[in-house]
């Protein structure tokens, strides 16, 4: 039986992959037909893949559960089908039931932990970060608590600050420096990610496709 692991198919896969990598990077020179072709293929493939995976889920989680005797899953089908009502203007209001169910469940499941994990625990951790045991720890504590406070004040929009509000103006300025430092840090990390993408594709082109040996 012929499988996709046959050398000829592996080689064909390498060449197709190399063609798409080079087509994508040809954009760096200028927008061109090869890039456009690669872009459209990617969108088409992603849409097809999403459709197939969605249908698999309907079969594996929906139909299989009903067949196994979990009849509660029947409820999901009319709610899911109601979402398609948006394509018929006269009956588009029906989609609200499906969305209402999804939003209600999503909100209730999300909110039970989110307040704890995104606000309460980080707030406690910030307070616990205060350490006055030695000079460097004191400096760290001032930086952490100071910048958390000033950044919070930067996003306080309930009052219009005039040029007379000298103290609050400086406090907000310090907060802004903190935000700029964080953005700089993000940029550095993002450069690492982007370079890793390029390096990975260069490794593929050099060592897998062209089979160049490392010196």
């Amino acid at each position: 039986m012929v499988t996709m692991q046959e050398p000829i198919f592996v080689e064909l896969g390498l060449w197709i992959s190399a063609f798409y990598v080079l087509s994508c990077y040809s954009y760096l020179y200028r927008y061109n037909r090869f890039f456009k072709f690669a872009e459209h293929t990617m969108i088409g493939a992603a849409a097809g893949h999403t459709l197939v995976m969605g249908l698999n889920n309907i079969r594996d989680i929906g139909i299989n559960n009903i067949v196994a005797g979990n009849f509660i899953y029947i409820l999901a089908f009319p709610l899911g089908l109601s979402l398609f009502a948006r394509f018929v203007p006269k009956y588009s209001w029906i989609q609200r039931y499906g969305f209402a169910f999804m939003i209600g469940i999503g909100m209730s499941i999300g909110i039970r932990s989110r307040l704890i994990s995104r606000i309460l625990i980080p707030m406690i951790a910030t307070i616990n970060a205060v350490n006055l045991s030695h000079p460097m720890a004191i400096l760290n504590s001032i930086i952490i608590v100071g910048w958390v406070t000033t950044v919070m004040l930067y996003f306080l929009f309930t009052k219009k600050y005039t040029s007379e509000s000298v103290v609050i103006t400086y406090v907000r300025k310090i907060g802004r420096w903190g935000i700029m430092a964080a953005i700089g840090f993000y940029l550095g990390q993002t450069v690492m990610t982007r370079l890793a993408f390029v390096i990975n594709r260069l490794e593929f082109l050099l060592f897998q496709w062209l089979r160049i040996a490392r010196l």
Partner: protein
Amino acid sequence: MKLNEKGKTTIMDKLADIPEQYIYAILAVILIVPLIKPIGLPIPITGDTIKFFDAIDALEPGDTVFFAYDALSMTWMEQGLGTMIVMKHLLLKPGIRVVGASSSNQGPPFWEECMNSIGGISSYGKEYGKDVVYLGYLAGGETMEAAIARDIANTVNVDSYGNPLSELDLMSEVNSVDDFALMICLSSGWSFGGWMDQWVVPYGIGEYVIPLAGVASDIWPLMEAGLIESMIAGSRGAAEYEILLKSPGRAAAGMDAQSLGHIYVAILIIVGNVAYFATRLKGED
């Protein structure tokens, strides 16, 4: 290109007008040369990677790890390196079992890619169904994550290959978050946050994350707060893990290029700022 009073261009003007194609071409050379002939720049190991490694290394035979496998094609190039070395470590350890599931629909092909790249499950003396099970893509986001935390068998009937879970030995022993020693999340973007909200906060399981380097700065505060145990930050973290496992691979080999690329980008930022401020000082802004 702008001309000064004498009708000549200055160095700063020339710097500001370098065609971007030249910048990309130089970057390509800077990255390709160390890939072909590595320089061997040192790779210091960070505490985060050591903590991640130690947690996996401390697992006892019989422990089961849940692998939230939220792979995406656009981020696999960086996260794949960390994922493959962690998976290799898990499979190398005798008696450790792995159950994987994806909240991203691109997870299944990258699960196969990972397993093929590290030589397949059987090459580690392990067996699918007994030591490793992959549930595949499960739709529903956090709703699904909350459901399988409580009861996997009542949520999912078959694995990614269509095998009924009732026929898989491993799934007769694990069915909820309480049956796992820890969880690892290959996080596409912020997907680790959903698992944190549905698995860590309500049940207290330890979550270890394999994020993009660009997301690492979001995770450090959560580690300080004790919500995330540790992480392997991008390709750098993967390189460190490869060294800890004494199995240097693609991530470690790419670190020279990564470091030189960073130096190049830093120089470009400095040159760009100098040119910008010099132009402003001349009042041409």
